[in-house]
């Protein structure tokens, strides 16, 4: 990530930062030696215990998703009518079994795959399209900007979950359509975010200087404008992923996302609804999994935001 400039996005426009923060930033060599923004962020992030916990949760989930066949004790689809609704702590099934006698631990481990897929793919797709649209609209302005703003005005007129549900309802309930719907719904948010950072970056000295020195527009947009807008986008994308885990599982819960018998946390929660009184773990455990991963992304996102700009600390 070769940011050619050492411009920090810290504006410090308002009141001076708290004493603790002043002391820390005074200790940063960034003020004397050129240092990339990302290494400053990393340095701050390393000291944030909550953010590290969040990163740990995410890495652990990624590991489970990749290593599912090795880690899972059973085949997540294998039904066994002799051990239906076995409680937590049953030998051989530490987290019990569901109404079809399938091992819940194995289904939870495999479920991490669809949970991450239905969150990360839409965020990535929305980010790519949103960045492209935001860069063009923010930098060139004119009709491209008006078009983006009107387009996003219209999409923002729909509550996000509702629009995603409506799109999936029309396209048909599959995992791919659910991801597509979530991506479409979140493009305008990314585009507007990038647009607003580009608007402020466009007039900064280093961009004006690069333009004056005859840097080709594409190169200027990517190396000077995008490189400086990227940290904000990364923070937003991380926090969005935390929300997308919930949205994705909600679509599956409604039967509009991942389809049974594929193990998925949303559909698993729904599976257990009928037997909630006699076997509450069937519904409870997948929800805890969704919660943990979402917390992970939210903790990391908050940490990244604080590391990026301590004045925004909440």
């Amino acid at each position: 990530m070769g940011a050619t400039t050492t411009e920090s996005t810290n504006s410090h426009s308002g009141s001076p930062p708290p004493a603790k923060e002043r002391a820390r930033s005074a200790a940063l060599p960034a003020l004397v030696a050129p240092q990339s923004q990302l290494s400053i962020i990393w340095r701050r992030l390393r000291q944030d215990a909550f953010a590290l916990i969040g990163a740990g949760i995410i890495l652990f989930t990624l590991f489970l998703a990749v290593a599912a066949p090795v880690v899972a004790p059973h085949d997540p689809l294998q039904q066994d009518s002799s051990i239906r609704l076995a409680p937590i702590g049953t030998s051989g099934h530490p987290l019990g079994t569901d109404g079809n006698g399938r091992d819940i631990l194995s289904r939870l481990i495999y479920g991490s795959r669809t949970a991450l897929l239905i969150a990360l793919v839409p965020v990535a797709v929305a980010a790519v399209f949103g960045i492209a649209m935001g860069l063009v609209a923010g930098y060139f302005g004119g009709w491209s900007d008006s078009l983006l703003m009107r387009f996003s005005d219209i999409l923002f007129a729909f509550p996000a979950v509702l629009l995603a549900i409506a799109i999936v309802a029309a396209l048909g309930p599959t995992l791919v359509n659910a991801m597509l719907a979530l991506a479409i719904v979140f493009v305008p948010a990314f585009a507007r975010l990038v647009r607003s950072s580009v608007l402020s970056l466009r007039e900064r000295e280093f961009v004006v200087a690069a333009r004056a020195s005859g840097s080709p527009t594409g190169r200027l947009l990517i190396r000077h404008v995008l490189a400086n807008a990227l940290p904000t986008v990364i923070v937003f994308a991380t926090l969005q992923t935390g929300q997308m885990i919930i949205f994705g599982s909600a679509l599956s819960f409604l039967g509009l996302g991942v389809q049974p018998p594929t193990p998925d946390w949303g559909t698993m929660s729904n599976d257990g609804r009928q037997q909630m009184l006699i076997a509450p773990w069937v519904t409870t455990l997948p929800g805890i999994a969704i919660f943990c991963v979402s917390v992970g992304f939210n903790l990391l996102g908050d940490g990244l935001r604080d590391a990026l700009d301590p004045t925004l600390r909440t």
Partner: protein
Amino acid sequence: MSTYIVRRIIGLIPVLLGVSIVVFLLMQLVPGDVAQALLGISARPEDVENLRRSLGLDRPIWVQYLSWLGMVLRGDLGISLQQRTEVLPFVMDRFQNTLILTVAATIVSLVIGLPAGVISATKQYSVFDRVSMLIALFSNSMPAFWLGLMAILIFSLKLHWFPTSGMWPVVGERTLPVLLSHLALPALTLGAASAAYTARITRSSMLEVIRQDYVRTARAKGLTERTVLARHTLANALLPILTVVSLQFGYLLGGAVLTETVFSWPGIGLALYNAISFRDYPLVQGAVLVVATSFVVVNLLTDLLYSFLDPRIRYS
């Protein structure tokens, strides 16, 4: 002020037109033939062809849109395939129940979120601040459908404090206490994430204002902390909070689909969910259109309220 209101209302027209185009195009996304989808796979080809012609599906798409829009403007959203009634009266009837739920959730959100945010901001980095922000992060990370199911499990099935579902009992009187007992769990479920968000926004908005010079001046004048907090800090912090709460209202309308499904609350969200499983496209279309339109109107009302509270906005 009145010219501002008129200007804002005129500005709504293109957005509402855009909304109508999106809702119309959504139904064009339905794979295959709409007439076939409406009649089912086993329908005879000549019936499908007749329905195509009577629905006007053989005409160019923009003609179809305009005639559909004309019907919508006359309040005709078609006939629900599942309910066998007109879509608009049915949707509006259900929408009332959703409004009851979302307003209750908004009250939950404000009653919990606002004081929590104010106390957190005035006692920044205190134990209360840290704990409440952690709770806010947690409830923001919880899927509403799961929270609802847990609430049913604990407070209805185990403790028998509240009914498990619905808005009214099958038999018995329809009194306010009965309604409230049915409303409590769905409203708390729907309002939880929103309360978390309100608390976070209130806190950061208050913190921003607390650092302003005029707050320091107010303190220096010797005003009591209570006066400084109420007259100088909270009054100025309320504007951004107001925006967020109104945006949350739209979020709540969307979230109502899940909460209503879990609690069988007879609102527009449950109607939409049932319509989707039934492939009742006119009802899906009508429900989405009504929710989106009401969201646009709520946003307009917020903007107007905002400009009423802060005259600078009208002139910019």
